[in-house]
């Protein structure tokens, strides 16, 4: 196939995956809806259900068959979507000449990040009971893919010179993976806060396990994400920055925010290590962490003019000399940690 064909193929793949996620999401919603109608069963029936389920708090979730089928279907479709998503990512890399990793701009970063979110979810279902997160994950992924498609789409451009470093691959892989883990962690922490207040016995929140379990799962996502983020931001990032810019740490806005994210998550882990800060406060800190993470990806671009990364074309100050190569380097970092004006837009 030619590059252009690969590119079209990749777009089709992303659309296909988005559609699959969407149907998975509908299946999950159907599951929830039928749970709700199950809850409207007569009191007597309810009692029977409760007995059948051993009287646990999850009694109402003792589900009729079609609910179960819907949930299964949701997961299976999500798995298919992840596979198609992966194919689309690979195709995106093959569409570039020379072939490369698909992390050249924000569109590519977003489709990679959402892939990791979905993949982590699917892998997590193998290890632990977390299928109930399906509706949230699919909704998030569908929304992010739509945003990527509508707002961030960009041509397949080759990686500029500065991106031609193995450190880029390692740096970005780890940044994307930890972003995915933190994102799922944030979904769980948000759920924790909602569940903690909720007394509802029907609907989604009733389907979700106890706050204690949510808290623990969220912690595990963060405990997985934090070392990976440390590796991305404090090891590979500086090594690469040193090679490309001549200084391993520049206090560039993107670095600053990656650092802030790191510190907030360190505080989160700390907070949990002291008994008093478990649960609620920790969940709030986790959401703050996710806010800094996503602000770095989306916001810095629009707010900061002094970043070596966010690079406005033609706005280079007249007496600034570091222009020539700053472009590519900046593009490098833009995919790297987090954000970026895509100066590469042709």
């Amino acid at each position, binding site marked *: 196939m030619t590059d252009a064909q690969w590119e079209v193929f990749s777009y089709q793949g992303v659309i296909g995956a988005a559609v699959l996620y969407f149907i998975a999401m509908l299946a999950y919603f159907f599951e929830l809806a039928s749970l709700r109608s199950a809850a409207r069963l007569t009191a007597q029936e309810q009692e029977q259900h409760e007995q059948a389920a051993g009287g646990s708090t999850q009694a109402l979730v003792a589900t009729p068959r079609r609910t179960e089928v819907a949930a299964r279907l949701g997961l299976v479709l999500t798995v298919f979507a992840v596979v198609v998503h992966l194919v689309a990512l690979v195709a995106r890399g093959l569409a570039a000449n020379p072939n490369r990793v698909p992390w050249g701009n924000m569109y590519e970063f977003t489709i990679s990040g959402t892939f990791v979110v979905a993949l982590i979810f699917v892998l997590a279902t193998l290890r632990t009971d977390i299928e109930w997160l399906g509706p949230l994950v699919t909704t998030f992924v569908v929304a992010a893919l739509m945003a990527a498609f509508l707002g961030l789409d960009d041509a397949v451009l080759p990686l500029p010179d500065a991106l*031609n470093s193995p450190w880029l691959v390692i740096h970005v892989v780890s940044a994307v993976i930890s972003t995915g883990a933190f994102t799922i962690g944030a979904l769980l922490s948000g759920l924790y806060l909602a569940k903690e207040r909720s007394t509802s016995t029907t609907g989604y929140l009733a389907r979700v396990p106890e706050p204690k379990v949510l808290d623990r799962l969220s912690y595990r996502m963060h405990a997985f994400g934090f070392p990976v983020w440390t590796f991305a931001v404090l090891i590979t990032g500086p090594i690469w920055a040193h090679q490309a810019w001549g*200084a391993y740490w520049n*206090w560039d806005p993107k670095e600053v925010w990656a650092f802030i994210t790191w510190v907030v998550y360190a505080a989160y882990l700390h907070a949990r290590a002291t008994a008093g800060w478990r649960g609620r406060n920790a969940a709030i800190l986790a959401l703050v962490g996710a806010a800094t993470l996503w602000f770095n990806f989306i916001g810095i671009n629009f707010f900061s003019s002094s970043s070596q990364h966010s690079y406005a074309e033609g706005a280079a100050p007249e007496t600034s000399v570091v222009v020539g190569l700053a472009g590519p380097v900046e593009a490098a970092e833009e995919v790297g940690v987090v954000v970026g004006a895509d100066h590469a837009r042709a």
Partner: protein
Amino acid sequence: MTDLKPDLQQRPSHDRQATALPTDLTARELGRWTWRQLTSMRTALVLLLLLALASIPGSVIPQENIDSLAVSQWRDNHPQLAPIWDRLDLFNVYGSVWFSSIYILLMISLVGCIVPRLFVYARALRARPPRAPRHLTRLPESASYATDESPEAVLERAATALRGRRFRVDAGADAVAAERGYLREAGNLLFHLAVIVVLVGVAVGSLFGYKGGVIMLNGDDYGFSNNLTQYDDFAPGALFDPDVMEPFSFSITDFQVDWLTEGRRAGMAREFVAELDYAIEPGGETRSYDLRVNHPLSIGGTDVFLIGHGYAPVITIRDGDGEVAYSGPSVFLPTNAQTFESFGVIKAPDARPDQIGLEGTFYPTFAMGRDTEGNLTMPASVFGDAIDPLVSLFVYTGDLGLDDGTPASVYVLDKAKATQVVKDDGQPFRMDLRPGDTVTLPDDLGTVSFDGLQRWNKIQVSRSPGKMVALAGVVLALIGLLGSLFIRPRRMWVRARRQDDGTTLVEVARLDRSSAGDPEDGAAELAEVVAALQGETPETKNSKREEDES
């Protein structure tokens, strides 16, 4: 969370919470109280969050040592705020007193927290696993069963099984106590100590290191040797000593850019190579190096980076007397990183009768822009490579402000006392030159010729001692972190007692001491140990097992 209580008792140093201020204090008590506050876990948390918060302004306000140009522009635009910002050190957040005091407090707190914990840990390492609590089955993870075996046989098997599972085992008269996962605390201590190592490495770099930039014209005629006078900009650390500067020298013999002319990516540049000839010391052997992005040249502890490039039109100015008043390449600075449209000035202070100054734009690939109707609009450069180079200059004469001794930037023309040369119709006189062109200036001022094109590179030289220390620190921190997060310290006890009916009651309990023990894993481990105990004795009666979800 029942499993936390033992923690609280056994690790006093870090779980110490801020205590209430005693009412009547001696200085000593006050000191102790302050120290306890400072090293409390809650203070560490607050300081961490403060550090995050304090980092924010520096990402919003331009920073002096990162982009001093943006700072001066900001100052011009906000004349009222700038003095206040100055007083608050907001143009230098990461070097400011208030920012430093946060992380220094954090470090003090860290040391104050870590050192006692090191001792506690050293003791814990030698300690035997704590004795079995009286009511084993009250622990959240426990099981019990009765068997015909003798208690001794059960306990012996328990000790073997637990040792086989790499527990440290202490066999008592009626119970076996076991513990494993000591490395978690070691990992945690390593992580916190490594944070200090990183900070030391970074501090050494910023105190003793330096970073400087120089714009170098290409060609053997232009050399650089590593000493202070040769830099265009230079940022030394507070304790920098010029004697550490390695005495190397280099020149750029050639510079190549691979411009893409076809396909979607046309107009982009890839593969920048500056060919260097360098010598490690004066008179030393000359070597070559292809300096590329991502491939700095390391000489001793110093690194040389290629960070920019641009054009330098070679211009000759003859004055009204026909004498050469200026001749040579002039560095034009890119104003557009894609097309390399560049701005520059040329000064000929020796021109007679009047000084001559030129100011204008260089277009590597010149084209007239067209609007949607096809009318000619602004001139522009359409490509970064020098395919159709053109320099377009305005002329000034009079006093260029160079004679009064104040230093002037070579990139700025002081027009305060100069007058712009105009055409007969009063419009500014502008000349557009292609290489080889010569233009005669009005009013017998002289001539200007565009002889050819040179290139320049921006080279950055930096020395950051301690960077390997910092790197080693982060790597150690990461290793420690992994240990701290994923090693699960836990204890297990097995008690066996003869009951009145002659059978032996065996109780097994497990206590997860980490904050995130996984109940499924915990239950699995408990079940495995129980299975191992019951191993060869299928005649088990009355099996009972309890698990708690917590």
